[in-house]
């Protein structure tokens, strides 16, 4: 026997075979064949399913690509619609907003307004000259009538 745990040489192997065949042959377990064939079947099935799986991702990927492409087209169209509506709304806001503001608030001409107010005030309230003129007119109408109370006589009533 050569060294430690080294593979047997051809001569050693032959000697061992002769020894076993002559003296030391043992019967293998009865279900050995059945188990080997079952293991083989499992391994073949695994390798076949692995091959199928290797192809499957391609098929899956192709299907996914098709599906996602359609989805992507639809998504793109939706996005485009949203962008366009947003732009249109922005344009509308830019142009219409000033007009809307004008409609809500009427234009006020302050100098004219002040002038009008003064005219109103002037027209509503008589001036001093007008009052005095009216008094003069009353005197001519009423004659020699003292329409104003005499203060000296008024003191009597106090």
């Amino acid at each position, binding site marked *: 026997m050569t060294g430690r745990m080294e593979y047997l040489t051809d001569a050693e192997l032959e000697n061992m075979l002769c020894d076993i065949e002559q003296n030391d042959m043992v019967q293998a377990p*009865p279900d050995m064949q059945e188990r080997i064939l079952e293991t*083989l079947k499992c391994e073949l099935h695994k390798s076949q399913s692995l091959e199928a799986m290797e192809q499957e991702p391609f098929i899956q990927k192709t299907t996914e690509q098709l599906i996602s492409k359609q989805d992507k087209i639809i998504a793109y169209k939706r996005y485009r619609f949203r962008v366009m509506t947003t732009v249109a709304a922005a344009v509308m806001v830019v142009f219409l907003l000033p007009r809307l503001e004008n409609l809500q608030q009427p234009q006020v001409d302050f100098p004219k307004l002040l002038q009008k107010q003064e005219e109103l005030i002037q027209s509503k309230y008589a001036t001093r000259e007008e009052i005095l003129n009216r008094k003069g007119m009353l005197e001519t109408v009423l004659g020699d009538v003292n329409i104003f109370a005499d203060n000296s006589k008024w003191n009597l009533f106090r």
Partner: protein
Amino acid sequence: MEGIDSQEILIRLMNQYQNLIFSICLKLTGDYFVAEDLTQETFLAAYNHLEECPKDAEKAWLARIASNKCIDYLRAAARRVVPTEEDEIHSLENPSDEEPLRQVLNSEIMEELRCCCNALSPPYREVAIAHFLEGKNAKEIADGSQTGVNTIKTHIRRARELLKKSYRKELLQE
């Protein structure tokens, strides 16, 4: 078609050489159940490399695969064992003293297996003796007893597990 032909060749090889290959594995490893597994691996490797099989030297080719697999197993098993201080000292003192490959008599191994089978409790004992020592399959054992084939298969599986535990305990104790 090729697959079927290969399977037929494999079945023929198994019918012809399974006892020989099992005996080689048993002799080199000294463990019944390890020999079982290595025999299985040998035939599966042979199936995967059938194109390399020389037509006039099938026996030697299979024997070579089996012996190499056994050596690989023993190397891996040796690596798993942590050497003690005594082993290291011994190897330092005697560097040229390499441990030779141990070959065990198959008859001794089968005798140890028989003791382990006898130590099992019924119904596993009878099933283990019939299957592992007498070489009967599940159908033959079921025909001899009043039990179904599936029950016998379950008993064989359970007996194998119990034997592995007790068999390996004894090997460790040695």
